[in-house]
């Protein structure tokens, strides 16, 4: 029986042949013609992809990423029939608060690496020892080194239940949970399930659109006239995200069809992952043109892209959108979490949650903050600020 709940150490070791094959494919890349416009109106621009492909094939070193991951305590355990990969870093401080952080699309555990030290050793990163966390960072089912579900059903609710099992298996009787993107849906589901030991959540993407308002979006209607400016902006942002982001629509309805492309064409995959939201894309275009993007480097971005490629997980990852559409709640519907909840709105996130709607969606809102900088990949881009938000958010729950 022990083997079923065993927690096994895990090391990343990708075969040399897989790396050689990746380099061969990038070298054999057949680019499309350049877009006939001078802006991003037809989406990911050829010059950006050329820079990325050239760097990926000639200067990028996956083994450096592997070493970075293997320097962290990583484990694998089977939950609900699926292998779950996770990073688990305990703080040296005794009273550290256990925290499980869930990533999203098009991310992975690699998004969260920069917050590990500020969270586990706050005293060395501008905080105090009393703010320390023990950090658990799992790979979502179908993502990275976690197993690929062989049957349907792994929606955010089921993932949330698995995370509660994981925290229990790690011996944590009292913990908090955090997430953005898919991680926010999983974290909210944990909040609704309220498993023993979960005392609160923090999200960096608030699910808060009132159902009646979402109904207008579903009907394709313009924003109701009585909305405030902040509500109207959120309305437009959710409406755009629902109907006009092709990657979301195709992954929500036909993940297998796009999967053939993303499993076979690494540069195609890289372009697909660049196309998430406008602000993120603009930063990434600058990054590959030699500019800065907060703490995110070109190597960081390609670590994440390479992880998707080397584990052949674009299809299994994209299926989360499909599963959500089939059995899940509307992603933008109110989270309905009555546990203590904290929210940080980052200014470049693709939906800016108005405070009044957020308060209704999280009736026990213990913390609401509008950060000064940062976007969809806040933990990756602004790790120090992100860690400070988590310290402040959870301080009252310690």
């Amino acid at each position, binding site marked *: 029986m022990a083997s079923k709940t065993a927690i096994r150490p895990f090391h990343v070791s990708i075969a040399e042949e897989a790396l050689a094959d990746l380099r061969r494919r990038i070298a054999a890349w057949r680019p499309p013609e350049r877009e006939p*416009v001078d802006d991003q109106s037809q989406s990911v621009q050829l010059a950006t992809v050329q820079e990325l492909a050239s760097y990926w094939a000639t200067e990028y070193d996956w083994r450096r990423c592997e070493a970075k991951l293997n320097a962290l305590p990583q484990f694998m355990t089977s939950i609900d029939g699926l292998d779950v990969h996770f990073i688990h870093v305990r703080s040296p401080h005794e009273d550290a608060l256990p925290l499980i952080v869930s990533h999203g699309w098009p991310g992975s555990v690699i998004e969260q690496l920069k917050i590990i030290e500020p969270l586990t050793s706050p005293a060395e990163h501008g905080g105090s020892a009393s703010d320390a966390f023990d950090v658990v960072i799992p790979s979502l089912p179908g993502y990275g080194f976690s197993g690929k579900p062989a049957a349907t059903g792994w929606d955010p609710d089921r993932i949330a239940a698995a995370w509660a099992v994981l925290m229990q298996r790690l011996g944590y009787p009292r913990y908090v949970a955090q997430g953005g993107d898919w991680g926010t849906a999983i974290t909210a589901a944990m909040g609704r399930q309220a498993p023993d030991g979960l005392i609160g959540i923090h999200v960096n993407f608030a699910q808060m659109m009132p159902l009646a308002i979402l109904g207008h979006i579903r009907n*394709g209607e313009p924003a109701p006239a009585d909305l405030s400016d902040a509500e109207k902006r959120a309305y437009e942002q959710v409406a755009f995200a629902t109907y006009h982001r092709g990657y979301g629509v195709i992954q929500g309805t036909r993940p297998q069809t796009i999967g053939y492309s993303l499993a076979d064409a690494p540069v195609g995959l890289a372009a697909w992952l660049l196309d998430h939201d406008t602000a993120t894309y603009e930063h990434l275009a600058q990054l590959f043109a030699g500019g800065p993007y907060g703490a995110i480097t070109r190597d960081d971005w390609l670590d994440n892209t390479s992880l998707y490629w080397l584990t052949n997980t674009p299809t299994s990852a994209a299926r989360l959108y499909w599963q959500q559409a089939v059995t899940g709640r509307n992603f933008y519907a109110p989270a309905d979490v009555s546990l203590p909840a904290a929210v940080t709105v980052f200014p470049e996130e693709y939906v800016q949650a108005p405070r009044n709607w957020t308060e209704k969606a999280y009736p026990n809102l213990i913390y609401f903050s509008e950060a000064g900088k940062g976007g969809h990949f806040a933990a990756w881009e602004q790790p120090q600020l992100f860690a400070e938000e988590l310290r402040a958010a959870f301080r009252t729950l310690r």
Partner: protein
Amino acid sequence: MTMTMTDLTIRPFEVHMPDADLADLRRRIAATRWPPRELVTDRSQGVQLATLQALVTYWGTGYDWRACEAKLNALPQFTTKIDGLDIHFIHVKSAHENALPLIITHGWPGSVIEMLGVIGPLTDPAAHGGHPEDAFDLVIPSLPGYGFSAAPKSAGWDPGRTARAWAELMSRLGYTRYVAQGGDVGAGVCDAMAIQAPDGLAGIHLNFLRRPPLEVVAALLGRAPVPKGFTEQERAALAAFGAQARKGYNVEQGQSPQTIGYPLTDSPAGLAAWMLEHDTDSYEKISRAFTGGPPSGGLTRDHVVDNITLYWLTATATPAARMYWEGGRSTAAAAAGHPPPEVSLPVAFTVFPGEIYQAPRSWAEKVYPNLIYFHQADRGGHFAAWEEPALFAAELRAAFRSLR
């Protein structure tokens, strides 16, 4: 003083793809890295692995592009520069003197290859169950950015600009009185031709209603409720048309043609899957052709792979997808401005039962008050000309008889 000379030359064209490109394609097919199998037993997660593997296996081992090339090169093909762009077209004149000139426009994910089966029945009807007086002279162009036509280097090649180019093409060919036909994107081009009503255009035939009545568009955009008194058929059409507009391929090509272009230009398997992902009826028929069932009419393995190979070898997945971006822009601009002038030209319409929505006669009449022919065919779907060439030709004969 400088004079701008317009090059009106019509140059003969033949297809000869380099051996190296065919070898590269076979290499890529052999090196295909597959995703895991879908988790469902139906089409609900997209193109199924068994179907695509059967297609790609046939493509890499049994299929012969040179046979398609020979078929194309047996036809009179030309290119000519119009509005700065090289346009490729097939031009087959009928042996009959009073043949009616007809320009047929394909759509996405199609090409001139969709139309090859109708050439015989339309140009030589007597040999195909018709009468010599029903003969057509046929012009079958490749849309800008598709197949052997050049890809536009700047934005603006929407259906309206394409329609003007087609009028110029017919005039350059010396046709003073002609008709036009199209479905899918081709229907958009024909609709624009009917609105523009160039000299010589005597009427059009459509097998897709691309521009439904304004109240339908308003209901689709949520700007107005579903009109009271809509019949069950009209409600079904509204729902099906709306569902197609919201499909992933449609949204992606309309918003991000460049993004999807990267994998489609680099992965033959990815391209093939994307091109099968159009509508359920055609997917099921094409899937059957590769998984052991009988092909549905002209939708044979070779025909399907000819079309996909054409997209691959000409690397046109991206510029072809851009037509959705262009179409979306021009539709939005039109919706924001004045409605198009009423079409007074004669219009004929055929509804095929497997088409993505069954256009009600009431809608066709509203958009085209001079509706001279409306008929529901017994068989055929989105690729009607390809799938049921004899039936399609019979429709065109009947549709245009009163305009001769």
